[in-house]
């Protein structure tokens, strides 16, 4: 039986910034936020002034001020790429509790433009990390820097424990690229949009430059600009807007660790716990899911997460891609926007997951701009899982079509 919060609110719209990916003129994170917020307001017909809850990864007071809002609920949870799935969870609870009616969840990140601006316009402090932080004293002194240097250790352990191979995981990159070729907004849409775009093979993935063995470049996500915003509202409002509601049937969140030093099992994440909570709230199980949006910072992230969500047996998550089930036309579509691997990954990718899940379940995935014929799938349920940090934190949502 579903829990009390199940379907207490719906996502009523999801929009992106005007320009995402690799903008010719550098953009600030704030610009990306505000463009997406204006776009979702126009899409739904909900005026910005009607927003009474503001959710973002570290930006909420700045956004509310910029928009001239006096919100009743301010949540600025910032725990990596899963923050936005957690924001939906928190918004659902706040709406169910009667505190707010319309929640804005917003993300703006100029992962690409920050290279041109010398780190300005990100909204983040620019100083060096605190040298007394345990991660600085006990990890950074050993030369790890950036996500790939950490995540590679998980792939090695998965290969050792289950007999899987990097080639098995390379299929995730290959299939995800096939989806990107149906999304004109994807960086890797075609050779015309990017020299590295268009179809790739397992050999291409394995022969690309080694970043952190066993991860080669094509096992790793992109670094781009992105702005995205969704509105979450109570059922009466969801029924009255011009867009279709997508119902939040289940939500859950958890964490295993912050620092990878504390990762107990390098082949498992807290997605098992966050998914269990979401399934319980929804009164549904993995067998009821018809598609998935799974954070793919790296191929290994997606493969392990599929196992944690109960979509594949332990050790065999990559099989969903390898046997074609996850591919366009397959029985169980995964990452239909082209993923963090080939569509867009600004640094924290959880908003991209939400926007695409909304498009698929509201049947708006083929508008010629964000999707070509063949991208819209017929799924009526979607499990969405964000992963943050170093396989650290997870937020899981079960979304269902109206």
């Amino acid at each position, binding site marked *: 039986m579903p829990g009390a919060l199940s379907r207490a609110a719906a996502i009523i719209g999801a929009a992106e910034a005007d320009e995402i990916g690799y903008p010719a003129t550098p953009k600030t994170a704030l610009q990306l936020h505000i463009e997406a917020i204006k776009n979702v307001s126009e899409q739904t017909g909900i005026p910005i002034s009607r927003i009474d809850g503001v959710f973002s990864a570290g930006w909420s007071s700045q956004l509310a001020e910029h928009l001239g809002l006096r919100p009743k609920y301010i949540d600025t949870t910032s725990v990596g790429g899963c923050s936005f799935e957690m924001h939906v969870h928190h918004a659902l609870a706040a709406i169910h509790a009667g505190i707010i009616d319309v929640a804005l969840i917003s993300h703006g990140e100029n992962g690409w433009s920050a290279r041109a601006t010398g780190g300005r316009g990100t909204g983040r402090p620019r100083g060096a990390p605190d040298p007394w932080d345990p991660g600085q004293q006990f990890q950074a002194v050993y*030369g*790890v820097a950036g996500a790939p240097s950490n995540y590679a250790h998980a792939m090695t352990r998965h290969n050792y424990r289950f007999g899987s191979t990097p080639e098995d995981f390379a299929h995730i990159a290959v299939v995800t690229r096939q989806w990107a070729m149906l999304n004109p907004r994807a960086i890797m849409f075609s050779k015309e949009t990017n020299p590295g775009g268009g179809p790739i093979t397992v050999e291409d993935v394995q022969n690309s430059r080694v970043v952190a063995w066993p991860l080669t470049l094509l096992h790793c996500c992109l670094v781009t600009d992105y702005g995205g915003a969704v509105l979450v509202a109570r059922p009466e409002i969801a029924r009255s807007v011009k867009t279709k509601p997508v119902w939040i049937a289940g939500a859950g969140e958890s964490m295993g660790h912050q620092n990878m*030093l504390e990762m107990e099992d390098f082949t498992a994440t807290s997605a098992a716990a966050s998914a269990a909570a979401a399934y319980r709230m929804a009164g549904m199980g993995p067998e009821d899911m018809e598609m998935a949006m799974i954070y793919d910072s790296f191929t290994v992230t997606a493969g392990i997460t599929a196992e944690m969500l109960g979509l594949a047996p332990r050790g065999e998550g990559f099989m969903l891609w390898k046997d074609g089930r996850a591919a366009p036309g397959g029985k169980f579509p995964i990452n239909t926007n082209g993923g963090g691997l080939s569509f867009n990954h600004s640094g924290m990718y959880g908003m991209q997951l939400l926007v695409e899940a909304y498009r698929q379940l509201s049947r708006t995935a083929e508008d010629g701009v964000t999707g070509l014929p063949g991208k819209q799938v017929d799924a009526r349920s979607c499990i969405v899982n964000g992963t943050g940090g170093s396989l650290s934190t997870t937020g899981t949502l079960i979304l269902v079509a109206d």
Partner: protein
Amino acid sequence: MAYTKPIPDPDPVHRPYWEGAREGKLMLPRCTTCNRVHWYPRLLCPFCHSREIEWIEASGEGRIHTFAVQHRAFGGWADEVPFVTAYIDLHEGDRMFTVLRGVDPTKPETIRIGAKVRVEFERANDEVSIPFWRVVEE
């Protein structure tokens, strides 16, 4: 030769570890309530939440839990790529991160999870020596 890579800046909670390292000893925190060793150092035991934590001199032995070969790095480490990073299962319990020595970063297939490793220390300056782990014979 001067140590060109990042040198830790020990804070009060972690100081006994770095003081031990300077003398060539691997010091680990152990809870005297539940007797379990934990890493990294805490104010409360992460297993039983006791405040009663002592520092013990460890055997300096462990085994490789998992590893990766870094081909991209920054600062002083950029000059050393490729190098092998690893998580070490400590003989006394819990896990530590390191740059692995005694292995060939160009032949990762020859590095074995479960292989025995022993700690050694490299002097970074007068105040700080940094532990590294080396693969040794069984």
